[in-house]
């Protein structure tokens, strides 16, 4: 990079191809981030350094993120354009249904399944909405299970104390 000083921006990391590194105009900074569309692009990366430079104006990288031949996806927070990983809460709902004995878990599974359908259709906004509902139903199911078991243990303790 000695012969040319490109504009500051995100470029492919010369040391580790496959990820982006911040070029401040003179030298490589220590800010690295995954290539758009690669693993870890979704929320939860957590590794992004705080001084968050603007998104890549760089040619190759920006194109990589959108070159999936998909219909344009409405911005959904963190990663618009690239495939968004959506936790559909399917497994959690299944466990909630079987362990917590509540029909709420089944509602959760149905929403999780709808979320997965939406992911297949690359409709990430709908997927996230359905996954949110699945999460709510699962968590309520888990919560009721915990409340029930806790209440039962309290009753047992009280019964034991009362000499029952």
């Amino acid at each position: 990079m000695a012969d040319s000083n490109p504009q500051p921006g995100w470029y492919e990391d010369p040391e580790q191809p496959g990820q982006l590194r911040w070029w401040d105009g003179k030298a490589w900074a220590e800010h690295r981030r995954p290539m758009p569309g690669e693993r870890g692009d979704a929320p939860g990366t957590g590794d992004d350094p705080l001084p968050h430079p603007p998104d890549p104006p760089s040619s190759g990288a920006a194109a990589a993120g959108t070159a999936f031949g998909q219909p344009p996806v409405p911005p959904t927070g963190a990663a618009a354009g690239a495939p968004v990983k959506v936790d559909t809460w399917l497994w959690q709902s299944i466990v909630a249904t079987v362990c917590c004995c509540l029909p709420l878990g089944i509602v959760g599974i149905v929403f999780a399944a709808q979320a997965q359908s939406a992911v297949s259709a690359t409709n990430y906004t709908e997927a996230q909405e359905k996954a949110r509902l699945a999460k709510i139903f699962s968590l309520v199911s888990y919560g009721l299970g915990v409340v029930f078991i806790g209440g039962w243990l309290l009753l047992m303790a009280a019964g034991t104390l009362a000499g029952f």
Partner: protein
Amino acid sequence: MIRQPAWIRPVAVAGVALVGCATLALVDQQRYAGLSPGCPFRLVTGWDCPGCGATRAVAALTQGQVLHAVDHNALLVVLLPLLAWAWVGWLRVSLGQRETGAVLPPSAAFGLAGLLVVFSVVRNIAMFDWLGSSASWSTAVTTTLVGG
């Protein structure tokens, strides 16, 4: 705040599950049966929910008695390998080896929801009571086969 390793959640879940299984394996089921809270759905309605018998099924599995496990909750015995597979996928995602976890195709997910509903209805019908949580057809089959 200390940064948690990526695998902490799947490993914690597996740990809790293993402690639960170990408890079930070591505790005398007959003696402490009354201590289990049982199923709230069953307590209220008197019907088996899809999870009824799951505790007893897991306890039977820890003793290696697969048929008894099927007696208590046939669906759980079918689901356990699926859940184990999902857990492995989750672990691999958390370790960064894979992009997405074990994903069922949407059709399979809907099918699973339907199966759960059908299972919870059918196991309460007298004709299919061998699917219920207190069935004992494996005992009957064993008795017939062994001639006891």
